[in-house]
């Protein structure tokens, strides 16, 4: 008979982000931090290892090396041969993968809970003992170039985003695509990957996040056992590489085979540096929600439905990143409307808020979404682990999660209006336009369905 807690919910709802010790945290003598969130709903666990090294830590000539190393991490150590890592995770009934961002590189396995120790052993092994053989590198770099062709070169919107960032930033390494420039990939060597690995893959630059049906003290003990033997090493100096102040509108276009144009606008804005004292980043996040956070938000209502100016229109902003902040507005003009008309429409939405502010109920609506999202997030162990990991990557302790939610809840309509006035100027703006080109020949059969066999 399921136990009901229905009467407790209304009181618990606002407190859903844990205020108890859960998640638990422990630091090993070698500097590795271990964060465990117990979630007993199902007999599974997710294990993640995060390294505070992403594409923003790369240098010219070897762009993409963070991501290439991520691929090479599956290519073996002296005790676990090439391909063996995946085989062992599969044999454990697990799923594994990895992801590289501008700010970090992370590896994860989702497994039945009893397989967690084996996953920790495998990850600890490759944290220090990667083989990085030349022949494996020679094959894998080809795979990465195929990945770039698939995800960037043949995707007009990805090409546009890549060019937009390369123009928005001129000094800060956020200008470089995570996957790297193709020519850098073509000239990359196993030695480049080795330098990267030796520089950043150390316990004092890493942390574990474990969420699932586990007991935190047992996980801490396993971490001591497997990761505790790895030695700490000094990290390379991280230079700030601050972006010089932009002093005027930048505009670019990309031509690519496509049917629909795209307009993307990128404004330079601040991000969270001090969770407790900052105000503007939270106001910017609520602004993004008011503009485009849901189907009832301003862009859908005004640009897509009422004015029929856009087929799609969106805003996005991430307040928790290591590097400089960007607030994006983007969309696709509807049939018969031009890119210039859509850009004017997006600007008009900002001007409207600058002049008249936002309604209290709009802000309340965005906050209702935020609270519900906190509950829905609890349905996925992976999402919970991801959120902890991403905050920590930026240097924000996971214990600040509830503080951030509180700060977002406290944003006022006046603060939203104020950030529009303060940051959305042409001097801080870069506009990118996709200029669609017809396919050289309309897709046609070079051969009809010809019989085989």
């Amino acid at each position, binding site marked *: 008979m399921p136990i009901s807690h229905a009467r407790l919910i209304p009181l618990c709802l606002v407190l859903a982000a844990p205020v108890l010790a859960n998640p638990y945290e422990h630091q090993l003598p070698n500097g590795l931090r271990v964060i465990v969130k117990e979630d007993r709903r199902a007999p*599974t666990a997710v294990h993640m290892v995060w390294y505070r090294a992403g594409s923003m830590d790369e240098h010219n000539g070897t762009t993409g090396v963070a991501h290439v190393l991520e691929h090479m991490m599956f290519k073996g150590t002296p005790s676990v041969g090439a391909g063996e890592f995946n085989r062992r995770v*599969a044999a454990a009934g697990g799923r594994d993968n990895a992801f590289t961002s501008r700010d970090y590189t992370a590896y994860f396995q989702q*497994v039945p809970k009893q397989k967690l120790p084996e996953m920790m052993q495998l990850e600890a092994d490759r944290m220090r003992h990667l083989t990085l053989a030349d022949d494996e590198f020679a*094959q894998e770099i080809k795979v990465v170039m195929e990945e770039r062709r698939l995800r960037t070169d043949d995707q007009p919107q990805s090409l546009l985003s890549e060019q937009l960032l390369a123009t928005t930033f001129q000094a800060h390494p956020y200008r470089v695509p995570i996957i790297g420039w193709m020519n850098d990939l073509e000239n990359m060597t196993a030695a480049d990957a080795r330098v990267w690995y030796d520089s950043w893959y150390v316990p004092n630059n890493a942390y574990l996040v474990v969420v699932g049906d586990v007991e935190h003290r047992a996980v801490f003990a396993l971490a001591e056992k497997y990761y505790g033997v790895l030695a700490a090493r000094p990290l390379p100096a991280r230079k700030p590489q601050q972006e010089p102040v932009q002093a005027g509108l930048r505009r670019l276009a990309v031509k690519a085979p496509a049917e629909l144009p795209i307009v993307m606008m990128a404004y330079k804005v601040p991000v969270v540096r001090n969770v407790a004292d900052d105000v503007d980043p939270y106001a910017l996040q609520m602004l993004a929600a008011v503009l485009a956070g849901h189907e009832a938000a301003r862009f859908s209502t005004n640009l897509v439905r009422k004015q029929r100016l856009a087929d799609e229109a969106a805003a996005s902003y991430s307040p928790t990143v290591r590097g400089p902040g960007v607030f994006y507005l983007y969309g696709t003009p509807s049939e018969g409307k031009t890119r210039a008309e859509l850009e004017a429409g997006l600007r008009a939405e900002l001007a409207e808020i600058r002049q008249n502010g936002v309604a209290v109920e709009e802000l309340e609506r965005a906050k209702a979404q935020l609270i519900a999202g906190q509950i829905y997030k609890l349905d996925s162990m992976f999402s919970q682990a991801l959120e902890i990991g991403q905050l920590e990557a930026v240097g924000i302790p996971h214990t600040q999660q509830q503080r951030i939610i509180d700060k977002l809840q406290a944003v006022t309509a006046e603060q939203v209006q104020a950030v529009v006035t303060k940051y959305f100027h042409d001097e801080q703006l870069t506009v990118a336009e996709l200029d669609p080109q017809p396919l050289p020949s309309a897709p046609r059969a070079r051969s009809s369905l010809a019989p085989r066999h």
Partner: protein
Amino acid sequence: MKPSPLLALFLLLVVQLAQAAPRIESWQAPSGARVFFVENHALPIIDVQADFAAGTAHEAAGKAGSAQLTRAVLDLGVAGMDETQIANRIADLGAKLSGGVDMDRASVSLRTLAMPDKREPALDLLRAILSTPQFPGEVFEREKARSVAAIKEALTRPDTIASRAFWTAMYATHPYGSHATPESVGALVRSDALAFYHANYTAQRCTLTIIGDLTRAQAEQVAERLTSDLPVGPPAASIPVPQLPAAGEQRLAHPAAQAHILLGLPALKRGDPDFFPLAVGNYTLGGGGFVSRLMKEVRDKRGLAYSVSSYFQPLAQLGPFQIGMQTKKTQTDQALMVTRELLATFLAQGPSASEVQAAKQNLIGSFPLRLDSNRKLLDNVAMIGFYGLPLDYLDNYPERIEQVTLDDIKAAFARHVRLEHLVTVVVGGE
């Protein structure tokens, strides 16, 4: 926020899901709709999904695109509320409305918080969407224009061009081979959507799946409320049996850097007991992610592709078996050759004994990962309900996998993947 003693209690009371598959309860609502329910109070969340036999295979002749467009406009106007009011209500409640259309099904899903002040208005709105859609003319025309634009854009992309050519090659004039085009969608009128709705969104064609923080008695009330005013009609006519194509290869020009390659054939129906040997075998062939033979030969050994896989997509009628990859266009023929040889060898010899063992170990071992959230439960239970699979399908899954033998795998592949019916489509390439 201060720590609350009530919260501590709340966390202590969180009910652990049983290790075994969850108990699916099922009944028929007074309307005739079939209901599938899993009670789970671990989180204050309720997921509801209504599935209708209203996929693209149920479109009338000459009305390609009507299933998608009907679903797109369904929640954009109900009795007494326009689309803005609906969107505002959903947002105010912190609810999520989603759904989609495939060949067999149209789905409408609601996720809501379980507290009565959120749950009740959210369910009322879902009832209105299912039972009183208005298909406002202006909204219909706008969504039609957006749909046409999206199809035009998709038709410039090599993956869409390849997928469409592939399905046409596999299914020819069968409904699964039909595609919405800018012309077919452009010709649709509001009455087409109304007609499609009244014919297909009926209680008799509906399965309702409910997961989460409700009791059985509450779930029964919810099911009755959500389906009692649905249109009434005969059960869905069955989708015709597709004819298997003759083997063949088609190449279409495209300027992309990579060629998109698809090989496959109509292969498997939902509920076919061969599903289990095919699942175990395909894990080794191309379904097992990084450890599959396709991944090892095409990606790891030769660096020919980033992504390569094979899978079965069982449908109400024979759904496809499909191998797909993308490779630099100069490597097209090499990638095709490697893939064809690998497939032929696999069909002739099957997996090795150790591969069979590894496949079973993963498919059985990873079973808890398929059920460790309400969202995943919803997907599984909705599929079981819609396709009429046995209610103990999840309970028996590990055992059915364990029973598969090498001979079962070879025999099942021999029945379902016959090379004389394998079609190949290449878009781009040289």
